[in-house]
């Protein structure tokens, strides 16, 4: 049996894959957080709840309407995006003039409500969700077994992350968005509808979270608690990456996912906390984060 650092290579690569998958979710979620924070200056505590909501919408679409995975992958993010837009329009937009911490507290309350409602309805245990038949099974790569669905998760999240990055960096809408991040008043004076831009941004962030949720549904069970379990880790990811750059958020997500997976191989007891430890080390050496611009 081939060994890497005294560990069987199968175990090593298996954990690397799990790390990569976790990293895919971290990347999608921290990307959404970074996009929302960039323009709205709100740390969206409800991001984990929106991720959970995406998974639940997919589950309900299948259970109640018989709509399978592939359409749900598009429909669920759209529904959650609409929900996000309504929240932003009716409530969140009233808080922009206040201290940013109020946005954090408001979305924290929102997360509690969403989570509470689903817990009340479905209990704390998870509901199984069947992935698409097309992606069942796997491939034997000779040195390890690669389940097709997990490979799909990594590819899909990479594609969506890159698409979002292109949308923000290379399109006209993205240039409005970046301009509004720098100076909203001036952009408004040029005739761009900034309030609408804010709503769309929040909706985009919500859609990204929901997309991650649908992707996660067949791997983890659909549970009301899945959001709060991941959001704090994603916060740590965001602190490590610094919220200055979109690409930084994506890259940090994957890196920390892999770091977590590798820790599981070498020192399993620490795998829960390794991301937080990395966060502390980064803060002590580079307070602005790895990719952060602000002092």
């Amino acid at each position, binding site marked *: 049996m081939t060994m890497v650092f005294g560990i069987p290579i199968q175990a090593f690569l298996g954990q690397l894959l799990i790390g990569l998958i976790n990293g895919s979710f971290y990347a999608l979620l921290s990307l959404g957080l970074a996009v929302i924070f960039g323009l709205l200056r709100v740390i969206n505590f409800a991001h984990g709840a929106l991720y959970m909501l995406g998974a639940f919408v997919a589950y309900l679409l299948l259970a109640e309407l018989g709509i399978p995975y592939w359409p749900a992958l598009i429909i669920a993010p759209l529904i959650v995006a609409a929900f996000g837009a309504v929240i932003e329009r009716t409530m969140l937009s009233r808080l922009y003039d*206040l201290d940013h*911490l109020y946005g954090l507290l408001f979305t924290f309350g929102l997360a509690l409500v969403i989570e509470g409602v689903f817990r009340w309805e479905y209990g704390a245990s998870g509901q199984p969700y069947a992935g698409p038949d097309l992606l069942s099974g796997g491939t034997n790569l000779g040195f390890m077994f690669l389940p097709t669905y997990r490979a799909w998760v990594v590819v899909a999240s990479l594609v969506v992350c890159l698409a979002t990055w292109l949308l923000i960096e290379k399109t006209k809408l993205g240039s409005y968005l970046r301009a509004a991040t720098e100076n909203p008043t001036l952009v408004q004076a040029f005739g761009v509808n900034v309030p609408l831009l804010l709503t769309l941004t929040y909706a985009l962030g919500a859609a990204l979270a929901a997309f991650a949720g649908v992707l996660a549904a067949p791997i983890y069970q659909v549970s009301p608690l899945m959001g709060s379990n991941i959001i704090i880790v994603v916060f740590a990811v965001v602190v490590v990456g610094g919220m200055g750059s979109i690409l930084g958020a994506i890259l940090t997500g994957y890196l920390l996912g892999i770091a977590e997976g590798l820790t599981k191989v070498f020192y399993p007891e620490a795998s829960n906390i390794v991301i937080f430890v990395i966060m502390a080390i980064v803060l002590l050496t580079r307070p602005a984060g790895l990719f952060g611009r602000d002092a």
Partner: protein
Amino acid sequence: MSDMTRNDMTSTNSAGAGGGLVNAQAIFLLIGLALLLAAPFFVYPIFLMKLLCFALFACAFNLLLGYTGLLSFGHAAFFGGAAYITAHTVKEWGVTPEIGVLLGVLAAAFLGLVMGFVAIRRQGIYFAMITLALAQMFFFFCLQAEFTKGEDGIQSVPRGHLFGVVDLNNPIAMYFFVLAVFLIGMAIIWRFVNSPFGMILKSIRENEPRAVSLGYAVDRYKLGAFVMSAALTGLAGGVKALVFQFATLTDVSWQMSGEVILMTLLGGIGTLVGPIFGAGLVVTLQNYLATSSFPVTIITGVVFMVCVLVFRRGIIGEFYASRLGRKLGFVHRR
């Protein structure tokens, strides 16, 4: 940050100056004390003790949020950490309750020093996220450590004899012990807030760059406030472990950190007594809902959203800002 904390009881700073104004506050204080002394003979003592513990917890938290302008999302680590240490030392080492609580406070202060040292490197919203992440790290530590007994927690902690003399298994005796601790804690907070140190903290809250330019070592003051707040939170947590005779993972969870924020927000950020009322409301609500199947988190979440949207001053803040409040000599600062 100045926006977060618009309320203050500045008139307490000039205590003894204006006769009539001070009298109104003194009367409120006396009524409050009388109620606290009489309460255990009418209301279930355990409930009252829970209320006092959480009130002290919220006031200690407010020391940081209201008077220094730092929103910590990780105070459960100090509360639960102290609860674990007190429970462990009293049960396994057999120390007297006051020593157990003291050890809990020391542990919380030390934890505050470590967490604060890392967290004060960033401001505002990052500070909140960092404290949350560090507290979560501590949660996982408690989940895996030996002495915390994992999911079970430390059960059936003996209350013991205070100073080896007073039997705390008597609910009334226990109540007056908790009340004494609460009053000592409040006195420390009052003294701290109105000391020169507290004044500098307020100046940091109002305008940090200016405080720096005036030559204050802002980071040191922030760290001092953080440790102070952590230690007082530990005081509340240690006593809580004795009241309920157990310490569990609930005490170190992020939900607990959220709860104390809600208490402070609901009562009035930056008011000395606001968090007490906030804690009272939240604890009463939880007790009321404990028997129903309706999840408390929905109510908590809605109260959070409503408070942030339309009720940012909190109960006591609104009272101070009202005509009656101003007449009685409470100043609401914008």
